[in-house]
């Protein structure tokens, strides 16, 4: 089953067309990496998928339900589009933890106050997740007392505590030192092994190659090429893809 289905997504900022008709489907349990040069539209695609940005044209489905359909070349969003937020979560490059909440509170506040779940249950689950991510002793710390890597792991726990069907990551390690990058990638790898459905925008090619089921190369607002990582990294069919990848293999 497709968790996510995007069809013909178009998005412009002013006169600049950033997404020029993108199709993206993600199956349950699939890990998709999105790579591409700066400004190619990767973040915009994720922001459209996560309803932070509205598409100009294109369709958006989660779990087969229609969040937006295309009518006369324009996206029309479902009236209860906010209900679709329960299907996904997004991990930001800059973490965006709430600085006035402890780590634990960051994790449980939305499940308790938005999803209205039982506080004790949520808390127990949150502690389990924090423990799994090596953050059990940090539950009562504030984000500013954590390293970047710990903050990013905390924000991943915050996303998981919502029990989403799938997770998006927008360059989750770009704000981190190389050592800290490793600990965050390890956690994402762990989620991949547990068959979490994920779309990861990344510049970490080794990671994309090792973890993804499929790699998508975006350039200039279109999907230039996609395929299994060994295919794409091994012998990309497209000249632009090869040129992009050669910058990383040096």
């Amino acid at each position, binding site marked *: 089953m497709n968790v996510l289905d995007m069809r013909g997504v178009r998005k412009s900022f002013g006169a600049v067309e950033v997404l020029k008709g993108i199709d993206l489907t993600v199956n349950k349990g699939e890990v998709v990496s999105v790579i591409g040069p700066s400004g190619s539209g990767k973040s915009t695609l994720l922001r459209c998928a996560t309803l932070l940005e509205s598409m100009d044209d294109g369709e958006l489905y989660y779990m087969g339900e229609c969040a937006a359909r295309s009518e006369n070349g324009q996206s029309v969003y479902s009236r209860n589009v906010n209900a679709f937020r*329960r299907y996904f*979560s997004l991990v930001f490059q800059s973490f*965006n933890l709430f*600085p006035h909440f402890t780590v634990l509170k960051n994790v449980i506040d939305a499940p308790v106050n*938005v999803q209205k779940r039982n506080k004790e249950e949520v808390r127990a689950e949150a502690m389990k997740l924090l423990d799994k991510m090596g953050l059990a002793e940090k539950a009562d710390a504030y984000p500013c007392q954590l390293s970047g890597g710990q903050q990013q792991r905390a924000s991943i726990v915050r996303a998981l505590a919502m029990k989403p069907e799938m997770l998006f990551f927008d360059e989750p390690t770009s704000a981190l030192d190389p050592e800290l990058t490793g600990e965050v990638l390890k956690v994402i790898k762990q989620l991949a092994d547990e068959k979490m459905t994920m779309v990861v925008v990344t510049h970490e090619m080794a990671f994309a190659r090792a973890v993804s089921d499929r790699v998508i190369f975006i350039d200039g607002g279109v999907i230039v090429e996609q395929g299994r990582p060994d295919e794409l990294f091994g012998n990309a069919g497209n000249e632009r893809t090869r040129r992009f990848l050669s910058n990383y293999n040096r």
Partner: protein
Amino acid sequence: MLEQLGIAFLKTLLIFVLTLIGSLPLGLIVYFGKKSRFAPLRWFIEVYISIMRGTPLMLQLMVVYYGPSLIFGLTVSAGWRFGAVITAFVINYAAYFAEIYRAGIESIPVGQYEAAQILGYSRAKTFIRIIMPQMIKRVLPPVTNEVITLVKDTSLASAIGVVEMFTKAKQIAVAPASPGMAALVSAAVFYYIFNYIVAFSMRRIEKSLNYYM
């Protein structure tokens, strides 16, 4: 003399407390008005803020006090004197607080809103749970400045004959066979100690919010 000043000081304290109770929340409402999607309300708030900031508080005080009788020919009761002081102070300070809140809210990174949106917080919940607590921490220093100014501004009430501490000190100082300077100096000491306590309390509050950055 000190007893008289002490009693008048209670009036000063009352003006101070009532002004804060009224203007701190009203400032937030004014801020929301300024951000409203309803353009006429936005313009109204814009004009209101610029008048409050662009004219002397003493003049505003007089307009509020004499306005009802001069403009509308109403007879005002004796109690209006004090009511006018509180009204003028509250709407004046609310304008300043609204601008301080705006700066505080606009300094919060957009990522906070986006994270809240992803987690499904409604607009109201985002503001109450995520934005407002961070805003309060950010605006405390400028709010402290305003609060200290307010301590001194209470003396403007004397312009319309409200007998708060400043008026009282003046009365004592110019009365025949008065202790003269002593009354003014005593009043100065009252104001100074009052402000010291205010500044000290605000610092305590700021410190209590230092547990996060």
